[in-house]
């Protein structure tokens, strides 16, 4: 007789819940924080560190006082409220933010740097994001002159006449190549605008200025300060050092003996000496190298020095990119019959620059951070202004609030630059090198 079971389950049981230690938050904590005795110790230590830091900073920062006229008033308010611990005196930011941002720029003219910043945002958009409308590139082209005019003011004819020099150079390249040949046109495009700027431009802008006096109130360089100064020096340095750096890198990779040796010499000298020594050179020694009687703005000297300095670093980064390209790319370009500039422009540089994006951006971040060094030659960058604020009797002895504000501003700028470079790197990543 068949042994028939009395009962057969006809449907599947619901799966049992996994053990409590193997799911959800508990599992995550076990795996990520307490997976072994070493990890447990590390977790406990870091928890303690976080607790210690927050316990010291949070009550101080959150209990901060925003409405006061001076540090002593801050202390009175604190003592009156009966708080036992120290609290921040954020009132200094409220009272002096305009100095930290604009230096001693006339306060009724704040719209000018703000407008320049907005314009800069518009001008930089088509360069940073290829989804932005291409027509904005016109803004990019006129931006340097517009920004100069807005920030420094004065007659409108100066920037326009200067811009005309670039137009002349461009016109010579465009229409002169047929008659002068490529090399002749290039040389002419450099020499003619130089002669124009040296001898003709001043007279023209003077004549136009007296005939049609259009202009806005001019502001001297020594009124510039704070983050405005840092951004002006940083942006000018970044914009000018990239092309110069690429040229230097090409020079260092070139087969032409003299150009090669000169580039190597320039790059090594600049990189071997700290920026602060170069800045002192600019402020102490530049007069020795110029014809007697010439004297130009300290800020302009700083911009030139910072540009030269970071272009040497960019040259090394780009050289790394050029060296990383497989030899076949160069040979492929040659075999297509492209000349040197065509092959560089169409084949080599796009790939080399793509490889060197992280290095270039970190050089830019370094440049922006290094703008703080100008405090040592007497320009009022944010750190210099924090000393100036402390020299005021009302705020004598205030440190952390100012440092935190300055540090946060720098962090926002530099961190967003590094995130942009990571985004760009991901976007341009084509699967192979």
């Amino acid at each position, binding site marked *: 007789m068949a042994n028939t079971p009395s009962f057969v389950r006809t449907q599947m049981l619901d799966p049992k819940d996994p053990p409590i230690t193997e799911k959800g938050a508990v599992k995550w904590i076990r795996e990520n924080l307490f997976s072994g005795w070493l*990890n447990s110790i590390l977790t406990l230590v870091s928890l303690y560190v976080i607790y210690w830091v927050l316990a010291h900073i949070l009550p101080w920062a959150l209990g901060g006082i925003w409405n006061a006229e001076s540090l002593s008033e801050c202390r009175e308010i604190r003592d009156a409220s009966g708080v036992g611990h120290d609290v921040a005196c954020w009132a200094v930011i409220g009272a002096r933010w305009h100095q930290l941002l604009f230096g001693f720029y006339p306060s009724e003219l704040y719209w000018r740097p703000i407008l320049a910043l907005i314009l800069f945002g518009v001008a930089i958009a088509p360069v940073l994001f290829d989804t932005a409308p291409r027509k904005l590139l016109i803004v990019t082209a006129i931006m340097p002159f517009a920004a100069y005019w807005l920030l420094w003011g004065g007659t409108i004819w100066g920037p326009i006449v200067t811009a005309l020099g670039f137009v002349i150079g461009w016109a010579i390249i465009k229409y002169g190549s047929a008659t002068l040949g490529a090399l002749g046109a290039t040389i002419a495009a450099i020499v003619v605008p130089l002669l124009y700027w040296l001898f003709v431009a001043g007279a023209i802008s003077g004549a136009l200025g007296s005939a049609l006096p259009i202009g806005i109130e001019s502001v001297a360089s020594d009124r510039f300060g704070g983050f405005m100064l840092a951004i002006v020096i940083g942006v000018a340095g970044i914009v000018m050092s990239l092309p110069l750096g690429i040229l230097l890198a090409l020079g260092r990779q070139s087969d032409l003996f003299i150009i090669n040796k000169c580039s190597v010499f320039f790059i090594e000298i600049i990189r071997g*000496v700290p920026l*602060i020594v170069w800045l002192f050179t600019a402020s102490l020694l530049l007069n020795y190298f110029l014809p007697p009687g010439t004297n130009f703005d300290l800020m302009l000297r700083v911009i030139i020095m910072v540009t030269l300095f970071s272009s040497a670093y960019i040259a090394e980064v780009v050289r790394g990119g050029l060296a990383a390209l497989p030899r076949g790319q160069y040979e492929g370009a040659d075999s297509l019959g492209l000349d040197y500039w065509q092959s560089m422009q169409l084949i080599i540089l796009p790939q080399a620059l793509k490889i060197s994006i992280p290095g270039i951006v970190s050089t830019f971040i370094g440049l922006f951070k290094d703008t703080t060094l100008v*405090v040592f030659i007497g320009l009022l960058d944010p750190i210099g202004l924090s000393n100036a604020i402390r020299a005021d009797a009302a705020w004598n002895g205030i440190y952390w609030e100012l*440092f935190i504000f*300055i*540090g946060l501003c720098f962090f926002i700028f530099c961190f967003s630059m590094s995130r942009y470079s990571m985004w760009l790197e991901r976007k341009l990543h084509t699967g192979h090198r």
Partner: protein
Amino acid sequence: MTIQVVAFALILAAIWFLGRNIVHNLEELGKDFNFAFLNSRAGYDINQRLIEYSNDSTHGRAALVGILNTLLVAFLGCILATILGVIAGVLRLSKNWLVGRLMTVYVEGFRNIPLLLWIILIFAVMTESTPGPRDFRGDDAEASMILGESVAVTNRGIYVPNVVFTRSLGGNEMTEAADGVEAAVIPSAVAMDWLLVLVLLVGGVFASKAIGRWATRTQEATGVRPPATFWMQLGVILGPFVVVMLVLGATLDIPELRGFNFSGGIHMRNSLIALWFALSLYTGAFIAEIVRAGIMAVSKGQTEAAFALGLRPNRTMNLVILPQAMRVIIPPLISQYLNLTKNSSLAIAVGYMDVRSTLGGITINQTGRELEGMLLLGLFYLVTSLIISGVMNIYNNSVKLKER
């Protein structure tokens, strides 16, 4: 060819233009170009000096004191930055989520905020938030010395114990402690003792390496490693060291509160501490990224292959991963050392007397020799970086993959 000739002509013209301007300007100012000022009396004091120096010494001597101070902070900074960077880099790769995040905060914070701000910040912490020497006074003092009553952290700097030799080779000459002047050991007298100790230590390291090679040879020949090799190696290094220390009568000179200030021990000024810590923390953040990239550059297959061979995890790390990671890590690491050395010129922010403040600062101001002073200063930094990059090139060539 045409381009080369044009470029050459332009460069010659530029050099001629600059040179003519310099000669002309020097004439105009009535200055000449010579380095004789290096032999004249300096006339200023330097608060931290590693070699004998007084305000009667020459400007050249002052420059040398500055150079040594620069090298001191660069050396200390490189060591601490490496330690911090390696720890942070390894911990950032840790599977522990919390530790990883914490290290990310450290790295991003220091990489995105100017070094100058960190130096000033740490200097402010050192001077504003630490107790003054008088807080250590009395039975219920507000502050106390740490690490077994041997280290005092004050707003005038950190006092740490010093090793002095009671039976020194050169006789232990101390300057008298007068009012306001700290007693200091005259450096040249103890230099002989330290030189002897250093020679013995270096000799010990070489001897222990020789023992190691002998043990390996024996092991390869007989299959048995000689017993107690490790202890022999340790003994060769430590034995002579301990004996010499005892013979010379080395004792700890512990700082103690005397009068209004601490005396004895080594006084590390706030300027040195701030510069040292800030440079180390800042460079450490960059080194952490280099270490992380180096470890990640070794492909996972290497680890798996090592496991397949039956190597234990720590031997896998030591024998397989690290040698390959080092090849990626060392070149950028050395360029970070170079950056640290150059960044030490930010000493100006806290008044640390490095070569820029002595040769490039006070000397220039006193003698009016900007051109010569800046030239020497630039040359010093240039030579330093060329030497370091030369060493790096030698290393790079020695570890280059020998492939065909």
